[in-house]
């Protein structure tokens, strides 16, 4: 199975990308291979598992070999193991040969799969081919790109590598490019986004440099990776500064003041009470519980560290993570719904969190939590304002007043929102004044909650459909529930207990405005 289109190894080393002028050597419309260290990272895990199994089986023998002093078991009492068998039958050479052959075969297989794993970035799509016997070929059209994620898992980061994920629309629709050297990954991301925006790449290409050996490539990548760890500077791209800074103290405080802390306190109180009443041994369960919660806090704080969010020409760029760094670029018009929320315990400090619905292209079986959905894990009102302004750049200043003064903090005098009618206030005993919806020329705003305040912003250009529900209780009180249908995510996009006539009016107007907004929306080619 030869591959007529496969080009030689990637040209290298790529120069430091100068934005929008030089394109990465990968994006010239030819087939290229991934970084030569890829098989190590992809297959390394399998090898580790195999070695682990062998070590586990021969543990006692290894201990005896290495520390003969510490093992006091006479050799005769050792459980029969394969090594004894080999010794007994003089099969050492055969076994050694077999191991060598297996290793060579594995190496050849890894090398083959690397050779057959190629990528191509042309003007209209990104393609990846992989597999030796069972070939897969995945192609993602660039005008449907929903975002590009650059992830640096801890181990890959030590080796100076990164993986790129081109997010498509649909379940399990992502094109993964793993692994690439950090600099290449940045350059490729820039190219993909520029191509997706409808601009063409600059024709000036990098001159093919002297072709380095695989070993040199690998050494260079590792060297720069280690350097990056030391310097703490990961992304070589010159990007605008983050518009929000989260002090570590605030991040820690926000995590401690979360709902899970309440659970912890409740559990501790419950256990102490139970222990003092009868079963004293219950006290011992406190320790593992504290460990579990401690691990949870440390992990969520580590994920939130080194947070940055910045507007770029190709969309909003969000970066997270202390050990495993994830950086995502969401192009304009790819945010389907936004929610600004304030948990009760954050209220005295005036902190808010912002989360979005966007297509993440993950498969439905991927249950790992989608951390990037929270684009602002914690921030003050000013932070929220800055983040919202880059997420939905085309709202007019009047609409911003409606969002901030009336929506997030509201309600104030002459509230423009459609709210719960008098007769149904008992259904929203605390929040009837806030519970409401408003249709502006670009978005549908849903305001909820008096204790847990939240505001959802649904851009009309992204609204898929609109629904109106009424159950028997709602009918008796003359109300209805308005539901904005957007792509799946964490944002709540329905609002209950609106007056029936108000809700009907909103339904009709939103349906019409949604069609109009979609007709003039050009953001899928945002440079257009």
């Amino acid at each position, binding site marked *: 199975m030869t591959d007529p289109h496969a080009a030689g190894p990637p040209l290298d080393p790529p120069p430091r990308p100068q934005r929008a002028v030089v394109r990465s050597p990968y994006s010239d419309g030819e087939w290229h291979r991934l970084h030569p260290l890829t098989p190590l990272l992809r297959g390394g895990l399998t090898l580790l598992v195999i070695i682990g199994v062998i070590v586990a089986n021969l543990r006692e023998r290894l201990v005896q070999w290495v520390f003969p002093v510490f093992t006091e078991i006479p050799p005769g009492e050792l459980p029969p193991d394969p090594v004894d068998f080999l010794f007994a039958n003089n099969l050492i050479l055969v076994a050694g040969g077999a191991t060598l052959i297996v290793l060579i075969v594995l190496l050849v297989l890894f090398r083959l799969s690397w050779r057959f794993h190629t990528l191509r970035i042309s003007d209209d799509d990104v393609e990846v081919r992989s597999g030796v016997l069972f070939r897969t070929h995945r192609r993602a059209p660039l005008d449907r790109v929903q975002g590009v994620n650059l992830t640096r898992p801890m181990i890959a980061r030590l080796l100076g590598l990164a993986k790129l994920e081109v997010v498509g629309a649909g379940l399990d629709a992502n094109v993964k490019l793993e692994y690439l050297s950090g600099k290449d990954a940045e350059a490729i991301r820039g190219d993909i986004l520029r191509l997706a925006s409808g601009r063409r790449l600059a024709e000036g290409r990098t001159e093919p440099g002297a072709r380095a050996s695989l070993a040199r490539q690998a050494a260079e990548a590792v060297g720069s990776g280690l350097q990056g760890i030391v310097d703490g500077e990961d992304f070589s791209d010159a990007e605008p500064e983050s518009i929000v800074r989260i002090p570590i103290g605030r991040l820690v405080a926000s995590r401690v003041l979360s709902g899970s802390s309440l659970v912890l306190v409740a559990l501790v109180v419950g256990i102490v009470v139970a222990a003092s009443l009868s079963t004293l041994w219950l006290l011992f369960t406190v320790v593992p519980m504290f460990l579990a919660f401690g691990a949870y806090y440390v992990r969520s704080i580590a994920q939130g560290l080194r947070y940055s969010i910045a507007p770029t020409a190709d969309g909003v760029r969000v970066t997270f993570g202390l050990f495993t760094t994830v950086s995502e670029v969401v192009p304009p018009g790819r945010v389907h719904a936004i929610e600004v929320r304030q948990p009760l315990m954050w209220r005295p400090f005036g902190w808010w969190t912002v989360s979005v619905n966007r297509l993440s292209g993950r498969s439905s079986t991927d249950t790992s939590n989608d951390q990037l959905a929270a684009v602002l894990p914690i921030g003050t009102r000013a932070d929220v304002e800055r983040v919202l302004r880059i997420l939905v750049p085309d709202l007019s200043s009047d609409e911003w007043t409606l969002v901030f003064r009336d929506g997030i903090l509201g309600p104030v005098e002459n509230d423009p929102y459609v709210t719960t009618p008098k007769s149904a206030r008992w259904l929203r005993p605390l929040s009837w004044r806030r519970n409401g919806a408003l249709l502006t020329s670009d978005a549908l705003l849903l305001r909820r909650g008096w204790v847990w305040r939240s505001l959802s912003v649904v851009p009309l250009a992204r609204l*898929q459909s609109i*629904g109106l529900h009424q*159950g028997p209780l709602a009918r008796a009180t003359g109300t209805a529930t308005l539901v904005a*249908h*957007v792509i*799946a995510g964490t944002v709540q996009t329905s609002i209950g207990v609106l007056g029936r006539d108000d809700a*009907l009016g909103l339904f009709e107007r939103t349906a019409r405005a949604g069609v109009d907004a*979609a007709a003039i929306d050009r953001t*899928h080619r945002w440079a257009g």
Partner: protein
Amino acid sequence: MTTPQGTPPQDPSESEARNVDDADRTVLDDATYDRILEPRSSRRLPLGDGTWHQLARAYVRVQLISQGAVFVLVLAAAVIAQIITGVQWQWIPAGIILLITAVGLFITPRQARSFGYQLRRDDLVFRRGILWQRVVAVPYGRMQLVDITHGPLDRGFGIAQLKLVTAAASTGVTIPGLTQEAAEHLRDTLVAVAETRRTGL
């Protein structure tokens, strides 16, 4: 794929929508119910104006037959189990299933008459339910695909189920009992109209 800039999509679509409606009168309203059943309360979600198309009458027959078959089968199985082995406990699960199917048999004829859909200029409006009313407006440009399914019993009675899929899973517009001609006609119309107003996600 999007409508060309500068030319508003009204002209082709308006005539198209009108054509849709004229042709539909015959195909879509053939052998269907002719009045949407609504809740009695005056605070219901009203019908509004425009023509509502409804489900085929055969849909109720199919539903009654299939649900009735389940009812009879479960009942027979439980009775036989009692006669042969003399045990009693199977009546607990059987009873639950029988109750649910009996309620289903009772409300299906009414429920089927609450379904309705309207082809407006830019969107399809769908409504269903009497106790729990639900109205959804889906812009034609947002449709990702239109699905038609029919089981063996459906084919016998010449009906089909049509499902509209948008990028949002919550849209959930499924029109269960259309005559097969109506379903195919509707699908072709929807696909044609969606093509002229295709938008991004």
